[in-house]
Structure formats: structure tokens, C-alpha cells
């Protein structure tokens, strides 16, 4: 069942468009991330869902009822949602228990039920022993858990998270993003998660919405998004990649400095003219010599221009002969080449993704 529907949503501040043509449908219990660089409109979209901002165009529906439309907006407090803020927004004048119980009190729950649910959620986030502390006495991670508990305990229609991990240090961030997913698996609350961190989005989400310049670039599950990016922006934003811009001509693709068979290239059937591909650094293999049989694979002769050892892998930059092209290649730590070495690169065209050509 469709839980939340964003229909051609748009928001302008003055004449500046912040969000344009955002259409999205969330299923009951789904976890969806809005991912993009700062200023891409993801937070504005989230705040429209929360009801803090009213849309300039389009509408938002929940459970089949209209929540937001230009000039008609249900107030945030009437939406039955909850939200975790970038600053956590834990009220410093209330104890942990008072913070977490706030939403339940507003719902006029009987005291015994309230206490049961309060204790249960505090157990889930492992904060029961701190329930009478004030927020100032808690660590960043504990404050984060208070915010999570406060938002989840009311079992909201939709849970909204606005970059909730950006104030934590790297280790804690990894721990908390798994925790968020674990809580989602336990409670199955429909969730919208805003982040600019691709790994956060990939760890937590069922589907990721990549946004740029106020528009949706692509909506997909993490695997498809990484392996089949549909735009150059998505390919470049999710992980690292190489762009190959070439031209199809009679079964061959001419790239700067080398020509390869078009046979195994995805989405190249019947194309005659410019094509572009995104090729991930770890889908390229490095060899000392060219093979006798190329089997329709793409082989490129070049030299190592730069190299860097990153512990988990070697990062090489290879320049094909006679071309102004730099290909980034990730190789295992055992694959050692020197700067200046002549090498052959093997690209598996089946793992390349066709993206729109540069204008």
C-alpha cells in the first residue's frame, strides 16, 4: 500500500527554485533516503513532508489524505509524524525520560501504558539507566539515541531524519547508521532519511533518491544505483568513476586514444553517434601484456602516470597512449606497478554503465 505520495512537488524561495518536479511514492514500511550534495533540495523536501514548509507547486498525500498543497497545509503537529533533527533538538530543560515521553503525554496515554512503552524504548536504545539524566550530561551518541527514542516511541506514521549523524565522529557514525537500520527492521516505520553521505544512504535504505539542483536524478535500490547509474551526476556522486566519451561507428566505439568493439557494451544496440560510459575503477584490471584473444572485451594500452597506496588497495592513474585521458584504476594491494610502467588495461564492458553524453 502506498503510504506517502509526493506529487510533482516544487518549492521556490522568492524567484529561486529550491525543489522542482519531485514525484515519489513510498510504500508502507519502506526506508527511503534523499541523497545529494548540500543545496540540492533534499532538506527542503523533507521539511515539506514534515509540514514546516508549504510547497509552491504539487502536493503531498499520506494514507490517501491530502497533507500539503499550495495554500493548504496541515500543520506539522497534526500529521502524526516524528522527526530527528540535525541538532537532535533534545530539550535541555527536560530529563531523558521527559524528552522521550513528551509525545506520549501529548497523546494522553494512561500512565501505566506510558511507562511501559517508555521503558521498552529506553531498553531498545540502551538508555534506561540514564533516564533521569539531563541531556547536558550525555555524550553525543547518547543524545542521538534519546532523539531516536523520542521519535520512535510514538510509532509515527512517518519517521523523518534530517542528517542525523553529521555531528558525530566517524566511528560513532558507522555504529549509529547500523543502529538506525536495526531499529527500522524492528519497528517497520515508514522512513525518509536525508543525508549527503552515500555510504549512510546505502547502509540504511531500501531505496535511494539522488537529488541535484532541486531535481530527482534517479530513484533506485543501492545495488542498481551503483551499478546502473542513469546520469553522469549519479555515477560521479555515488562512488568514484571514469567517464569514457566516444562515438559508435559500424560496430566499433572510438574513444580518445583507443577503439573497442561495441558488441558487449550495454545499451549500444542501434546507436550510431556519440556515447558515454561510466566505468568504475575496480572493474578495470591491469596486465603487463595484451592477450591473444580479446573475446569482445575492451583493452587499452597505456602507462602508469600516478600511483598511491591506500592500504586496502592501490590507486593508479593510467594514461592511454596518445590521448588526453586519465583512467583511475583500483588494484589489489599485491598488484604493484611503478610510475612509467607500460600496461594493458582490461575493461569489462558488461560492467560499464551507459550515461548521457556530455553536452
Amino acid at each position: 500500500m502506498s503510504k506517502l505520495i509526493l506529487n510533482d512537488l516544487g518549492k521556490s524561495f522568492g524567484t529561486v527554485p529550491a525543489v522542482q518536479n519531485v514525484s515519489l511514492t513510498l510504500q508502507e514500511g519502506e526506508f527511503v533516503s534523499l541523497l545529494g550534495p548540500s543545496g540540492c533540495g533534499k532538506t527542503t523536501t523533507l521539511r515539506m513532508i514534515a509540514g514546516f514548509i508549504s510547497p509552491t507547486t504539487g502536493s503531498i498525500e499520506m494514507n490517501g489524505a491530502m497533507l500539503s498543497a499550495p495554500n493548504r497545509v496541515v500543520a506539522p503537529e497534526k500529521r502524526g509524524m516524528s522527526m530527528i533533527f540535525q541538532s537532535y533538538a533534545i530539550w535541555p530543560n527536560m530529563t531523558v525520560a521527559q524528552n522521550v515521553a513528551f509525545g506520549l503525554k501529548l497523546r494522553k496515554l494512561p500512565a501505566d501504558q506510558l511507562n511501559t512503552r517508555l521503558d521498552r524504548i529506553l531498553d531498545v536504545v540502551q538508555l534506561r539507566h540514564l533516564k533521569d539524566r539531563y541531556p547536558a550530561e550525555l555524550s553525543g551518541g547518547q543524545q542521538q539515541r534519546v532523539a531516536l527514542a523520542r521519535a520512535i516511541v510514538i510509532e509515527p506514521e512517518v519517521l523523518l531524519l534530517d542528517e542525523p549523524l553529521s555531528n558525530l565522529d566517524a566511528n560513532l557514525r558507522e555504529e549509529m547508521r547500523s543502529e538506525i537500520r536495526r531499529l527500522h527492521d524492528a519497528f517497520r516505520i515508514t522512513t525518509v532519511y536525508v543525508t549527503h553521505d552515500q555510504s549512510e544512504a546505502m547502509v540504511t535504505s531500501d531505496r535511494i533518491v539522488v537529488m541535484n539542483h532541486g531535481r530527482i536524478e534517479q530513484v533506485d535500490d543501492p545495488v542498481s544505483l551503483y551499478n546502473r547509474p542513469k546520469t553522469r551526476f549519479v555515477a560521479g556522486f555515488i562512488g568514484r568513476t571514469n567517464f569514457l566519451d566516444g562515438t559508435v561507428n559500424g560496430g566499433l566505439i572510438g574513444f580518445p586514444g583507443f577503439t573497442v568493439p561495441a558488441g558487449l557494451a550495454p545499451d549500444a544496440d542501434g546507436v550510431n553517434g556519440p556515447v558515454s560510459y561510466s566505468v568504475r575503477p575496480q572493474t578495470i584490471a591491469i596486465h603487463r601484456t595484451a592477450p591473444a584473444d580479446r573475446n569482445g572485451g575492451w583493452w587499452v594500452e597505456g602507462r602508469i602516470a600516478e600511483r598511491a597506496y591506500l592500504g586496502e588497495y592501490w590507486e593508479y592513474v593510467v594514461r592511454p597512449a596518445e590521448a588526453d585521458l586519465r583512467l583511475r584504476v583500483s588494484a589489489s594491494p599485491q598488484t604493484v606497478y611503478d610510475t612509467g610502467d607500460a600496461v594493458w588495461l582490461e575493461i569489462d564492458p558488461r560492467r560499464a554503465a551507459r550515461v548521457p553524453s556530455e553536452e
Partner: protein
Amino acid sequence: MSQAELSHSVPVVAMRRRTFDPLMILWVVLAAALIFLVVNPLFRLVQLSLQDTDTGAFTLLNYVTAYSRPRYLTATWNSLQLGFWVTVLCLLFAVPIAWAVSRTDMPCKGAIRLLVLGAFVTPPYLGSIAWILLAGPNSGWLNRVWMAVTGAQEGLFNIYSFEGLTFNIALYSFPYLFIFTSAALDVVSSEMEDAANILGAGIMRTTLRITLPMILPAILGGAIVTFLEAIALFGTPALIAIPARFNVVTTQLLQFFSQPIRAEVAAAYAVPLLLITVALFGVQRLLVHRRGFVALTGKGGERRITSLGPWRWVMLGYTMLVLSLSVLLPYVVLAQAALSKAWGRGLSLDNLTLHNFYYLLFQHETAAQSVVNSFTYAAAAACIAITLALAIAYIVSRRLLPWAGVLSFVAMAPFVVPGIVLAIAFYAAYAPPPLALYGTATILILAFATRFLPIGYANADAAIRSINPEMEEAVRILGGGRLLAIRRVLAPLMKRSLIGAWLLVFIPATRELSTAMFLYGPKTRTMSVMLMDMSEEGNFESLAALGFLLLASTLIIVGLASSLLGRDFMLRRERG
């Protein structure tokens, strides 16, 4: 409990149309209040200055009258000279002390900051009364000591002179410059100086080319504020210039207000003062914003302390000299006079008495009433100013309504209106029928509230800005309305800073003179007005006792505020 049950308790309520927002009513109320307090009085002031009193016809004759007599022009010239020399003296007092406190190893910095705070909260007219006791011709303590030591027939000092007036004002104005300068010095990080050192610049060169240029806009800004304060000051000139038989702009304005009242001439005479003030504040903002702002907002890095060696005792000596003249000696002579049967007889047991206080509080016709008046008016004014400021600041910071920026501009506008001009503006607007408020407590309270509204606004605004809007949004998304968010979260979080803001309005309002002087009636004298009245009677013992009461209460309140807000709360620069 299932999710379905919960959803029932928070129904998705029918959408409300956004054609009418109840907040609009608040906007209209606030706008009306600001028009009443700020816009209308200033408008009436200008209108009055351009009107023939009898016919109401347009005329420029008031301006001709106000500026045709050489006497009146001399007063203006005196004011400009006074402003200039006070500023020069303040620079000499404040800049070295600020530098020494902020950047050197001079000892006793804590005590010095406290004494500067003391100078800052001492009403200047009280300082003048003390200095009349110190440097009155022949009878002043300093003169008597001089004559005793040297055997001279005449005293050395005469407070009743232009030099005396300048010096006296400077003693109580230099804290402004101190605040501006030390605020600037506090944010110029030593790293910026280190950056010059590492490139090969010596200490002198670094100071002249790096440090000084960075704090210069702040110093100039402070100098302009000092100049404006000096020319707008009423109490000190009234106590010193009038007996010395010369006039400045503010005392001249008072004379236009003595019988027969020529308010229209006063208005015409005051308008240029207003224009000068507005223009100079404009210059000051430009200075501080254009060059100084980057340095002033930059994150203050670590600041290194310059070691002065034996010179630190010289610096301390100079600092203590200034502060003795400003605070220590005046407080001592005031206390002595307040506790004496006759102040001229000096310190001896048989001269000691509490009678002056008894006389003031229980025998004098109006003195006790004036004490009560001062505190009640100040409290009422502070409540009005803070309520208004808070509502406006909330609307502005949360962008709840369009055109909120206009409200904040108008709320800050009285900052550039000298108290005496504001008083005449209120007189012009609300003395005539139908309101006929002249002499009532209402007009005094409203005028005080208006005068200190900018202080209230700057502080209320800072208080609201310091609270992340997400704190309120968290309430709302969980199902609480805006009012609940304000009651349960915003109000508790702002309690301390609001009490602080209230005190910052209350403190100057208890001692406000220039506004009260033009608006009080027989039953609405404030302590400050009472002091002026008594100074004419020449009863310095009761005068000192009243001043002592005012000072003591101020110090108690400031002490209270410091414990709430941190010791330096008044010496911080809150507004540009």
C-alpha cells in the same frame, strides 16, 4: 499498542486554509505599538518644528528663532567642542587601559574590569555631584588639600569651567571606548600578529601595520559613540555649565522649556541634533562593518600576553589614577557627605550621622516618593520594552510574517535618538489633548520604554537566535502546537537571558534623567529629577544621601545581574 490505535489519537485533521493567519493580528498590534512609541513622536517633533503655534500653518520661523541669536549658536558650538575634547580625553583614558587589560601582564586586571564597570554604571550626574564636592572652587576637597599642602590662598581646580565639564564627562564616558577597544582586541588573534612576525616584521611594525589597522574601525566607532553621548548628555552640563554661566545644546533646550514653554523652538533646535546623531551613527556602522567586521567576527584564536616588565607597574599606576578619579574618590566623597552633618567639616565621629537618610525617606516631602517612582517606572518600562522586543524578535527570527524586518528596524530606531530629543518628541506628540499625558507616570514609562527598546531588542534577539528553531520544531512534529512549544521549551530555555535583558533595560531606566527632566510633573519626580532639584537648593548632604541610595541600589542590581549572566555582561559589546 498497535500503530492503528495511535493514529487514532492523532487524527490527520482537515487542512486549514491559509488565507487568514491569526499571527497577522499580532503583527498589527506590534506595528501599532511601534507607531505609537517611535514613529508618531518623531513625526510630531518634526511637524511641531515646522508649525506656527497659533495658526498651525507651515513655517520655517521656528528654525530662524532657534538659530538667529548668537547665544544659541554659541551653545551649539560649545557642544561640538565639548564632544570633541571629551572624545580626545576618552581615547587617552580608554585605549591604553583596554590594551593593558586585554594584552599585557599588568596586574589586578579583575579589579580593574570591576572598576571600569563601576564607572560605566555610575550615573554621570552623580559623578558631577561628587566632583563638585571634590573640585568646587576653594571648598572642594582637592582644593583644600592643595591649599593645605602649598599654603596657597586659592584652590587649583575649578569644576565650574569648560575644562571641568569636559574632564568630568570624560571620566564617565570612557567605558564605551574601553568596551569597543577591548572587544576588538579580544578577537584579533595573536596568530595574525604571528603571521606578520614570521614574515619578518618586528613588534613595532606589527603593532602599527597589523594590530592597529584591525582595531582602528572599532576605536573610531567607539569614538563616534562617545562624541554623540557627550553632546546628548544633559545632567552633567546642567550641574556644571549652568552655574559656570555657559550653555550647551542640551541646557539651551531646557531653557526653551522653562516658562514660557517654547516647545516649537525647542523642536526646531533639537532636529539638527537628531540629524547629526543619525548621520554619525551611519558613519559608525559603515566603519565597523566595512573594514572591521571580518576581524571582529573572526574566531578569536589564542592571544598571547605581552610582557611589560617593570613598565607594568607604570601602566597599573596610570590605570588606577584614571579609575580613582572616576570611581574611587567620587564614591568616597559621596559616602562622606551622605554620612555627615556638614560635609565641609570632614571625617570625624561627631560629624557622623544617618540623619540625611532619615530626612530623605521620612521627612522630605517628595524624596521617598521619587525613589518609589524611579523603581516602579523603570520596572514597568522594562516589562513593556522586553515584551515588545521579544514578540518582534520572535517574528523576525522565525520569519513568521512578511515585513518583519521593518518592525525590527523601527524597534532599533530609538538607538539613534538622543534622550532629550526623544523627550521633546514625546512632549510634542502626547502633551497636547486629547491624550494630555504631560507630567503623568504613563508618559514617563512609555518614554523610558521607547528609549531603551533597542537595548531590549538587541538582547531579546540574541536570546532567541541562540536557540535552535529545531527545538520548537521537535515539539510540533510530535504533536504540540506553537504555543505549547513556546511555553514548554522556548520560555524555560530563555529564562536567564530574558531576566538579563530585563535588567539591562531596568538599570539605565532607574537613573534616566534627560527624558524625565522634560516630562515629569509634580507627583512624578524620579530620583534623577529629585537630585537635580536638590542640587539647586545646595543641600549637598541630602543630595549625596539620595545619590548614595541610587548608586547602592544600582550596584546591588548589577551584582545580581552579574551572577546571572557572568561578570562581564555589561562590558560586552552587544550592539554595533
